[in-house]
């Protein structure tokens, strides 16, 4: 009998320290796992607990999956103590991925905040797989300080993938070395060479950042049905049965975790 509550073992084959409290774990599951960018999986520390994360790696690679994880709660704190060679569990993938078909031949406007760049990295790699299918790919990324920027060594290589890729990074506060923009991420959402009526936007970051970015995008003229938001909710089962992640008529786990703003804008407490 197929048991959706159990997990397959996966070996930690690499750990990259992104920032003081964010690490990217490269996991090799016992058998390859097919997922779509934007779907999430539950990572288990056997006998301890599990938590949901969206893989941050290219969905064309199925034998090793990256998970970029901030130390925030009980399970993630313990994950951060784990070493290369240790074993974790994986179950999933769950939820709907980013609607890449809908993005085809459009201008793609991505806004990330902090560790929220993790699922967006999976999205970017998915877009890069067929980079010429998209009119333009723009990433606006904000981190608290220059030290909190994730994927530092990779971002330059993303810029070189194609001419129609444009990446801008800002930090809330600067430091002695930082030469980039200083200010919260909404301060770089201006002077955009984008057809707002037609473009699609994808946003992932802390709730307060998503809230203000969404309002800014609406001001700029983005359609609410073209703003894709990653809704972070308490999830347990991942398959629409345990009841935790309900948002109005939806379960974030099976109807999301990515929702277009038109679907959720009238629901209570969506930014909390």
């Amino acid at each position, binding site marked *: 009998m197929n048991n959706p*509550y159990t997990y397959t073992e996966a070996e930690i084959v690499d750990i990259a320290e992104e920032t003081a409290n964010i690490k990217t774990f490269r996991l090799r599951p016992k058998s390859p796992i097919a997922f779509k960018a934007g779907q999430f999986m539950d990572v288990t520390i056997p*006998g301890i*607990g599990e938590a949901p994360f969206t893989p941050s790696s290219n969905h064309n690679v199925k034998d090793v999956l990256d998970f970029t994880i901030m130390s925030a*709660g009980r*399970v993630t704190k313990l994950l951060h103590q784990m070493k290369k060679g240790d074993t974790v569990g994986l179950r999933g993938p769950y939820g709907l991925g980013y609607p890449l078909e809908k993005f085809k031949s459009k201008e793609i406007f991505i806004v990330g905040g902090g560790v929220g760049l993790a699922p967006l990295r999976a999205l970017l790699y998915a877009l890069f797989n067929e980079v010429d299918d998209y009119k333009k790919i723009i990433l606006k990324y904000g981190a608290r300080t220059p030290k909190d920027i994730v994927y530092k060594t990779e971002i330059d290589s993303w810029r070189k993938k194609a001419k129609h890729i444009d990446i801008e990074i800002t930090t809330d506060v600067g430091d002695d070395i930082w030469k980039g923009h200083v200010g919260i991420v909404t301060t770089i959402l201006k002077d955009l060479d984008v057809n707002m009526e037609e473009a699609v936007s994808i946003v992932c970051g802390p*709730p307060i950042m998503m809230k203000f970015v969404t309002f800014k995008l609406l001001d700029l003229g983005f359609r609410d049905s073209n703003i894709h938001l990653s809704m972070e909710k308490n999830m347990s089962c991942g398959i629409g049965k*345990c009841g935790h*992640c309900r948002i109005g008529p939806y379960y974030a786990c099976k109807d999301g975790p990515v929702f277009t703003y038109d679907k959720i804008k009238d629901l209570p*407490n969506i930014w909390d």
Partner: protein
Amino acid sequence: MTEKIYTITKKNLFDLFGRLSGTHRVIVPYEKGENFHFADFDPKKEDSIELGGIRQSQPLKSFINPPREGMLSVHNEGSKPVIIAGVKGCDLSSLMLQDFVFLQGDYEDPFYSKGRSGTMLIGNDCTYAKETCFCIAMDGAPYPKKYFDMNLSRMDDYFVVEAETDKGNSLISSFRMFFAKASRADIDKRQYNRDRVSAQIKDFINKRGTKNTSQIKDAVMKNYNLTALWQDFASTCVECGACNLACPTCHCFLLFDERSKENFKKRYRVWDACLYRTFARVAGGANPRKHLYERLRNRFEKKFDFFPKALNYFACTGCGRCIDACPGNIDLREVLKGLVDGKWNKPPND
């Protein structure tokens, strides 16, 4: 119409339970004071078995989807099939929701599926009603209408038996020496009893002014921002979750992992309660329902808005367990009345 309706004497019924106990786990209701509770059939305690009365303390979900269950492997061998006798109409109707949650969608829950298919449900008419009974307001009845394999309606010292499914028919067929054909008079008497208990419940509903499903349709969402109402009803809530745990339709659960002394890794499913502060909180600390009144409101939203929209089903069977269980005297009927009528009193704080 009398073909599938039989009678069985009390003695024969208990003999039948005794015979079935060899191959099945047989669960029956026992009377204790004013209450009834389910426990394994024990011929030594036959005197306190009551296949009548009102709904038992435990909701039916306790036996199909236990409060705590190991989740890493589905055990297929060793466990006996289960027969639960004495299940009331309010509990049986909850299966519409439980089946929807656990059997439908992209993933069938193998644990629930096994519990459900491995359990024979013997329904049972209520022989009286309690003031907290309001099944009729929730489109139910004090006798089983659906989801039973066989039903028992208590007469004085015998039962009218009706088989509903193949499981029920084959049980009767296998033990046909225990059963006799029901007469027209038996069936009329059963109807008389059903009408009598129904009238008693309607009387309770009318006296209190309890709202019915057509009156409460849309009431929660219309009054979603009527914060004073939600705060007043939450004023005596102690966040114990008893309303959730006693409810036959509440289905929420939590997965948790632990290590045994031998370092054996385990994962359990435990019933969860949306009244608990941590229910929707995420690791970063954000909580969409920080305030207690928001969590109380959430319970009503789920029952009287989410499920009517998702399943065309009001997720309350009118069993009244949450009213009995609440140490804060929060009465679901009074909340619904407040929503519909726009006036309400705080729960009595005694």
